[in-house]
C-alpha cells in the first residue's frame, strides 16, 4: 500500500490534502486553517508568508507532524501521518525531518558539539561525533565545540541549530522564522548558511518567514491569509 502511494506521487515528498485546524475556545470554535491543499516536491524550497496570526506556524506544525489536523491529511514520503500514532510520527521525524526555530531551541545543559550530536545519537548512528564536528566546522564554529548555549551569541546559537538540523541529512527541513530573533546582518549570515547547506544536501526546505526578500530566495512562495492559501 505504501508502495502504491509512493508510485502515485513519486516526486512529492509532502502531500497535504484539505488540511484544516480548528480549536475550541471560550468564544466558540476558532478555525485557524481551512482546507489547505499543498504538494511539495522532493528537493523543492518553499516559503510560507503571511501576516502574524495567519496560521503559518500552525501549517508548518501540521506538515511536520508536530500536531494533528482537525480535518484533511498529510503524507510525508508516502506515509499518511493520520495513520501513525505520536510515537510513529516521532520516528518519522527522526528519520526524515530537521528543524530550525526562531528561538534556537538548544538544550542548555549540553555543549554545542553535544547538541549537534543529539539527533544522530537518538537514531543510533555510530560516528555521531565526527559528523557533528564536521558540520560545526562547516558553520564556522570549530573553535566553540565545548561551549554551552549560554556562552554563545544568538547568531552562533542559530548556527549550532543549523548544524544540528543538517547533521542527520534530513530529507526535509522545516524552518520557522529562523532569523526572527537575530539582527539583520547576523540573520543574513545564518540564511546564507542555511541555503548553502540546503544546496549541498539537496534538502526539501519549508521556510516560514515575514521577510519577502528571504522568501524570494525560495523556488516557490505561498501566502496565507486567515488560514487559507491565496
Amino acid at each position, binding site marked *: 500500500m505504501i508502495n502504491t502511494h509512493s508510485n502515485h506521487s513519486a516526486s512529492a515528498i509532502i502531500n497535504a490534502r484539505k488540511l484544516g485546524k480548528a480549536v475550541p475556545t471560550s468564544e466558540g470554535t476558532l478555525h485557524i486553517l481551512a482546507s489547505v491543499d499543498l504538494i511539495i516536491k522532493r528537493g523543492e524550497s518553499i516559503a510560507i508568508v503571511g501576516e502574524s496570526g495567519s496560521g503559518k*506556524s500552525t501549517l*508548518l*506544525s501540521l506538515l511536520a507532524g*508536530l*500536531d494533528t489536523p482537525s480535518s484533511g491529511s498529510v503524507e510525508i514520503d508516502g506515509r499518511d501521518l493520520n495513520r501513525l500514532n*505520536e*510515537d510513529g510520527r*516521532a*520516528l*518519522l*521525524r*527522526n*528519520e526524515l*525531518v530537521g*528543524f530550525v*526555530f526562531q528561538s534556537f*531551541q538548544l*538544550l*542548555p*545543559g*549540553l555543549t554545542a558539539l*553535544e547538541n549537534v550530536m*543529539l*539527533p544522530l*545519537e*537518538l*537514531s*543510533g548512528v555510530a560516528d*555521531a561525533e565526527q559528523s557533528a564536528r564536521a558540520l560545526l566546522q562547516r558553520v564556522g564554529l570549530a573553535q566553540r565545540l565545548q561551549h554551552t548555549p549560554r556562552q554563545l551569541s544568538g547568531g552562533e546559537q542559530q548556527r549550532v541549530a543549523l548544524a544540528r538540523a543538517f547533521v542527520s541529512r534530513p530529507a526535509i527541513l522545516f524552518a*520557522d522564522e529562523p532569523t526572527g530573533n537575530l539582527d539583520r546582518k547576523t540573520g543574513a549570515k545564518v540564511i546564507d548558511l542555511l541555503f548553502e547547506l540546503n544546496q549541498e544536501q539537496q534538502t526539501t526546505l519549508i521556510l516560514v518567514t515575514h521577510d519577502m526578500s528571504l522568501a524570494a530566495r525560495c523556488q516557490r512562495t505561498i501566502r496565507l491569509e486567515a488560514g487559507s492559501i491565496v
Partner: protein
Amino acid sequence: MTRFRLSLKLLWRDARSGELTLLALALLIAVGGTTSISLFADRLQRTMNLQAAEFLAGDLVLAGPAPVDPQWLAKADEYALSGSQTVEFPSMLLENGEMQLASIKAVSETYPLRGRLKTRDAELQDEVVSSRGPAAGEAWIDKRLLPALKLKLNDTLTVGEKVLKVTRVISYEPDKRGDFYSFSPRVMMHLDDLAATGAVQPGSRVHYAYQFRGSENALADFKAWLQPNLNPSQKILDIHRDRPELGSALQRAERYLGLSSVVVTLIAGVAIAMATRRYSERHFNATALLRCLGCTQAEIVRLYAAQFLVLGLIVSAAGCALGWLAQYGLFRLLKNLLPETLANPGGLAIVYGLGTGLVILWGFALPPLLRLQAVPPLRVLRRELEPLPSSGWLVYGLAAAVVAALIWRYTDDPKLTGAIIGTGLLVLLIFGLAIHTILQLSRRLLPRLGLHWRFGLRGLLRDSRAGVGQILAFAITLTAMALSFSVRSHLLDDWRRQLPDRAPNHFAINILPSSLADFQTDLQREQIPDSRFYPVVRGRLVAINGEAVQGRVSKDSQGEAATQRELSLTWSDRFPEDNQITDGAAWQADRPGQVSVEKKLADNLGIRPGDQLAFTVGNAQLAATVVNLRSVQWDTMRPNFYMIFSPGTLAGFPATYMTSFYLTEAQKTVLPPLLKKYPAVTVLEVDQILQQFRTILAQLTAAINLILYFALAAGFSVLFGAVYSTLDQRIYEGALLRTLGARRRLLRIAHLIEFGVLGLAAGLLATLAAESILYALYTRVMQIDYQVHVYLWLTLPAAGVAGVTLAGYWGVRDVVRQAPLRVLRR
C-alpha cells in the same frame, strides 16, 4: 548504550547546574534518616539482647519442674548451642543448732553462660568476679546464712546428705529469680554434688533450668523446634518475656523510632515530589525538543528513568554512608554509657537503605516525572502548551503505597497500617476539599481587597490546584513534626517519671523492729535519703467473702501467683506517693480491720470495695474489709504493696521493716559496714539493673533526638522545595510586574502576604490534624486521658507562618532583585 550515555550526560549537567540539589538533598535526608535509625535500632537491639541475656545467664532458657529429655540437649548440640544447667530447690539447713530454710542452686561447670557471678570474703570485702560457680565440694552462700546458722567461711555445711565447704559469700547472681521481698537465702553448689545430697526426690519442689547460648539464627531455630514439644509446665524464657519493663520500653521506642523514620520519609517524600515537579517543569522544553527530534514517549521515559535510577543509587549510597556515620557518631557520643561489648552494625541495614532510597524516590518522583512523556512536541512552537498534570490518584496512590509499605514494616500490623493510611488519605481529602473551597471563596473576595492583599492572594489563587497542593504539603509536614515532637516528649516524660535521677537503687529488707531506729539513724548520718520504712508481715490471702480464694483465679494469672505464696502485708495511714485510689472511699485508716487492695490484683480476683478478705499469718487468722482499690506504679523502685492495712490491724504479728534508698557510686562503701552491723538485714542492689535500664533509655533518647533532626531537615527541604517549585513563574511574573511599574515594595509585601497566609492555613490544618491523631493515639492506643495541647494551637500556626514566610521570602529574594529585562529575555 549511547542513550544511557546521553542520560548520564544530562544528569551530570543538571547536577552541576544545581537542578538536582534539592531533590538529592531530600532523598539524602530520607535515606540517611531511615538508615541511621534502622542501623541504630538493630545494633541497640543486639547489644541489649547481650545485656539482657546476662539476666538469664544465657540467651535462651528452658525451665520446668522436671529434667528434660536428653534428646533435647542433643538437639541443642546439633544447633551448635553451648549449654549450662541449674537445679534449684528449697532445703532446710541445720547447723550449730540453728535452722534456716534456704534456696539451693546446683550449677553446672559452664554456668553462667552469660554474665558473671560476684563473691566476697567473710568481711564482705575483696569482691571477685568469676565466670563459673563453686567447684565440686564447695558452697557459696548468701551473707544472711552466716549469722543465721552461726557459720564462718571454711566451715562445713550439710545440704541433704552432702557435706560441703563454705568458701565464699555470694553477692551477685545474674539470673536471680523471684521478687525482692520473698526469697530464702542462697546456697550455690556444683551440679556434680547434687545426687549425693539426696534432696531431690520425686515429688519435691525443684526448678530445673537449661541455659543456651549461640547465634541468633540457631537460637531461633532451636526455639522453633522446642516450642511444639513443650508440655504445659515447661517454659521458654527469653529477654522479652522475662524483662517486661525493659521489653516494653524498648518496644515502644522501637515503634516510635520506626514510625519517626516513616515521618522523615513522608516529609522528605513531599520535598522530593515538589523538587521533581519543578525538575520536570524545567525540562518541558528540552523534552519537547527531544520529541521533535524524534524521541518516542517510551524513550523519553527511559531517558529520565535512567537518570533517576542513577541519581537514586548514588544519593542512596551517600545516604547510607550518612546514616552509618550518624549512627556511629551516636554510639561514640554514648560511649561512656554503653557496655563494652557492642554488637556490630548489621550489613543488612545498608542494603535496606539502598532499597528504601530507590523506593522513596520512585514513589514520590514518578508521577511528576511521568508527566514528561506527555509533553507535546508542538511545544517547540507554542510554549504555553503543557502536559496534563499527573492524575491525583497516581500521585497520592503511589505515595500512600510507599508510606504504607514502610509503616507496615515497622508495625508489622496490616490492620493498623491500613487504619493509618486510610485515615491519612481521608484527612487529606477532606482538607484538600476544604482548602479548595476556601480558595474559591477568597477569589470572590479579591476585588474588594487592597492592592497588596490582592497581589498576595492572587499568588495563591493563581493555580488553585498547586495552591491546595502546597498548603497540604506544608500541613502534612507540620503535622508530622508536631506528632513526632509530642510523642517524643511523652515518651521521655514517661521514662523520666519512671526513673528519676536519684531513683532508689537499693532495697533493704528484713530490718528488725529492734534495730529500726538505729538503722534509720545510720542512713541519716550518711545522708542517704530513704523512701519511708514500711513494716512487713508475711501472710497469705485465703478467702474473699468467705469463699476460698483458690477457686477464683485463672491459671498462670497474676492472681494465681499471689494466692500461692505469701504476700508482703503492710500497714500505713497514708499510701506511697504514686499510689492512687481508683475505686472506693478515701483512706481514713481510722480503725483497724480496713484494707486497700492493688487494682490489678483486685480485678484479677474479683475483689470489690466492701468485700471481706481473710488472711492467714503464721497460724493465726485475720479479717479485713476492703475500703478501696489502688493503682500502683511497680517500676518506681520504691516499696509497694498489694495489701495495705489500716494501722493496728496487724498488731501483734511479727513484723520486719523494709525501705529503699539511693546510693551514689561513692556511697557504696557504706554498705559493707552497714551489713556487718545489721547481720539480719539484706540489701538488694538493683543499681546495676537500673543503670542498665538508664543507659538504654539514654541511647533511645539520643536516637529519638537524632531522628528529630532528620525530620527537621526534611521539613526545611519541603519549605525550600515548595518555594523553588514556583520560583520560575514568580521570577517571571515579578519581572513583568516591575516592567509594568510595580515597585519592589509592593512585590515584597505581596510575597509576605502570600507566604504568611499559606503558612497560617497550613499551620491551622496541621493543628487540627495533629490534635485528632494525638487524641486517637492517646485514648485508643495508649489509654491515657487526653488533654488539649494548648501549645500546639499556639506553636503550629506560628511555626507555619514563620517558617513559610522566612523560607519563601528568602527563596524569592531574586524575584525582586534581578533586572526585569534579563528575566524577560530568557
